């Protein structure tokens, strides 16, 4: 069993696996944002938005 965190973009519940490691990507099922997991020295978890490529129809 893992634990829950809230999506920083849309507040949905994100399931974080118990054995999560720094650098792992977690996706939000509701808004589709990707987060890179960062484990701090004190063991706290931080979610950093990962880059998402957009579309460009303007050419």
């Amino acid at each position, binding site marked *: 069993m893992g634990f829950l965190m809230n999506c*920083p973009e849309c*507040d949905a519940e994100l399931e974080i696996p118990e054995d999560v490691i720094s650098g792992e990507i977690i996706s939000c099922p509701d*808004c*589709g944002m990707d987060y890179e997991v960062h484990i701090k020295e004190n063991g706290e978890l931080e979610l950093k938005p990962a880059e998402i490529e957009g*579309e460009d129809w303007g050419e």
Partner: protein
Amino acid sequence: MKVGILGASGYVGGELLRLLLRHPRVEVSLATSSSRAGDFIHRVHPNLRGLTKMKFVPPDPSKITDECDLLFVSTPHGVSSSLTPQILESGVRVIDTSADFRLKDPHAYVKWYGMQHRCPELLEKAVYGLPEIHRREIRDAQLVACPGCMAAAAILALAPIVKSGKIERNRIVADFKVGSSGGGAKPTLASHHPEHYGVVRPYKPVGHRHTAEIEQELRILAGGEVSVAMSAHSVNMVRGILATCHVFLVDPLSMIDVWRIYRGFYRDEPFIRLVREARGIYRYPDPKIVVGSNYCDLGFELDDDHSRLVLLSALDNLMKGAAGTAVQDMNIMMGWPEAEGLWDTGLHPI
């Protein structure tokens, strides 16, 4: 339970038949049509071939009350109000998909529909049949008035933010792109293929009738006046509506605030989906994805530079905009599982 459909040869009537013929708790006992009486149903609605061998019958009020426990009415505006009082007197419950009982104010019918209402005493008794707003009243209603298709799209998009009190209630703009089936089954020059194919036709830039019911319902939620300016465009699709609503914030909101407002309002709603994806090609609601289903997809985006919140709503005008909501209302009235007979998803690709 036996159900009938008055005006079953139109597009909404066909969609009601499609849903009701497969509904596990009802038997379709009659389907009326003045113009197609005597014809097999599948000759008018070819997608129903093999589902029934019924024929359309002429609309005879005394037979209707003998042969069904609940009646769906999908006649042109102005027809239902001449027949419904007699039907209701017999104890048959009515779900009307026309506009005849949507508005509470009889004077509004003169302004928006150019007619004196035939039975204004029924307007107070009729329940506006949008389950997400009036579920409790629908349960006990004898007469339910289904929302207009564009009105349903706009009300569902706007209700949470209007109720939250976070926007200027007198400055709301709602823009619509509507498929051609919204114009009904009767052909006109405007619907003729060479005239309609490829259009983005602003057919009602101001003064659309659905303004009346949108403002009526949002006033109830807001507890005060609400002003919605509508513009409607006919576009090159058969089914579907996209409503793009522009509202202006009183105080700044974050995206997470907007998510919380919409999640809170529509928690546990079976046919509302929130769509604001960071990835993929369908990042916001798109009518293409809901065609054939009873879903209304809702999305939003903040424009901080202009204190604007853009709300997007996509639904199938014949389903969540008419027949789907009507069947959802019936399920609520009968105390059945609300989504019974309505679980079709849209098709993809289509």
